[in-house]
């Protein structure tokens, strides 16, 4: 995350708000609150996960509500957005963001990058901005995570994030 921050600061185009600094326990709501209060345009959440047998693998997730919006009764018009449904107004933007990231990350050599996926990621549910979660694997408990912590690899991921954001800002994917 620090490398992504540095790469973004290097463009002189973005203001970055870290929702967590250091190894401190910050709740999902606290992180969401920090992003929403800052008026974020984009929200990135990085995760290490068990993505199977590939040494380096990345999946980019956008939010998918657990219950299809079709099944939910339409809420009455209101100036207020329910906190738990804040992300639902940005689903298309988030999907575009995920696609732009996936396309950039897919250019990295030696990394398996899956097609963008939608998942009920709790960390994205209340974010009032285009939001994605990037999961890097593999990180099973019995697996060495060295492949994910190499500075060169992290730098490549950071550069891809900057390129994806630049592309989105120009109106493309």
């Amino acid at each position, binding site marked *: 995350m620090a490398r992504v921050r540095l790469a973004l600061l290097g463009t002189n185009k973005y203001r970055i708000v870290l929702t967590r600094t250091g190894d401190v326990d910050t709740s999902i709501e606290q992180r969401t609150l920090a992003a929403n209060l800052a008026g974020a345009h984009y929200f990135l959440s990085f995760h290490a*996960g*068990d*993505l199977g*047998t590939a040494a380096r693998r990345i999946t980019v997730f956008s939010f*998918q509500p657990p219950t299809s919006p079709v*099944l939910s009764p339409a809420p009455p018009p209101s100036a207020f957005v329910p906190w738990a449904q804040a992300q639902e107004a940005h689903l298309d933007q988030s999907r575009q963001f995920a696609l732009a990231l996936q396309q950039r990350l897919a250019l990295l050599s030696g990394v398996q990058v899956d097609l963008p996926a939608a998942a009920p*990621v*709790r960390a994205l549910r209340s974010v009032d901005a285009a939001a994605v979660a990037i999961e890097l694997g593999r990180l099973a*408990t019995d697996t060495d995570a060295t492949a994910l912590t190499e500075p060169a690899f992290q730098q490549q991921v950071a550069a891809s994030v900057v390129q994806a954001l630049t592309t989105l800002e120009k109106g493309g994917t």
Partner: protein
Amino acid sequence: MSRRAKILLLLLLVVLAVAGFYLRTLAKRVFIEPAQHAEEAARAKLSEFALQSKQGPSQTATLYFPSLDGGNLLPENRSLIWAEADVDRVRQVVLALAEGSHQGLSHVLPPSTTVRAVFLSPDGTAYVDLANDVLNEFPPGIQTETLAVYSLVNSITMNIPSVKRVQFLIQGQEVETLDGHADLTAAFAPDPSHIKSGP
């Protein structure tokens, strides 16, 4: 009171306090914990009974197990003798998933999973209450949690038509996430997009 008597009194109080604490711990072990274990054991027996129902003809159920390498769910047919009531059928599906794949696919739930209770509301929402041992040895990550949730939801709803949605509870409580990632605060509708289509 002499100094010696005071010291003796103090020592006596300390001994009484330690004895009291020990007796309280002992009583808890003897009377309270076995009751909890008995409750869990009774639930486990109920679960086994539901899974091993011997009445009625055997039918094929389709269970969906995760393929972590593919990042999707794969179907696996399983022969089950369905229970009469839909809530028991839900329990059967969950326990069949906990038993694990017979074709080498990934685990959804640990084999020790206990289904505490299943409720079915008139609007077709099944409330599946799992014991917190479901989180034992759960592999970390967004993908693993998402596939686990939709493995359960798709397997339940596609085999039991009266169930339209599934809401998960852990130890009788609504929880924020399964293990830090998947949002469990709402009921899940089935989503076939997580199932691998074609060969």
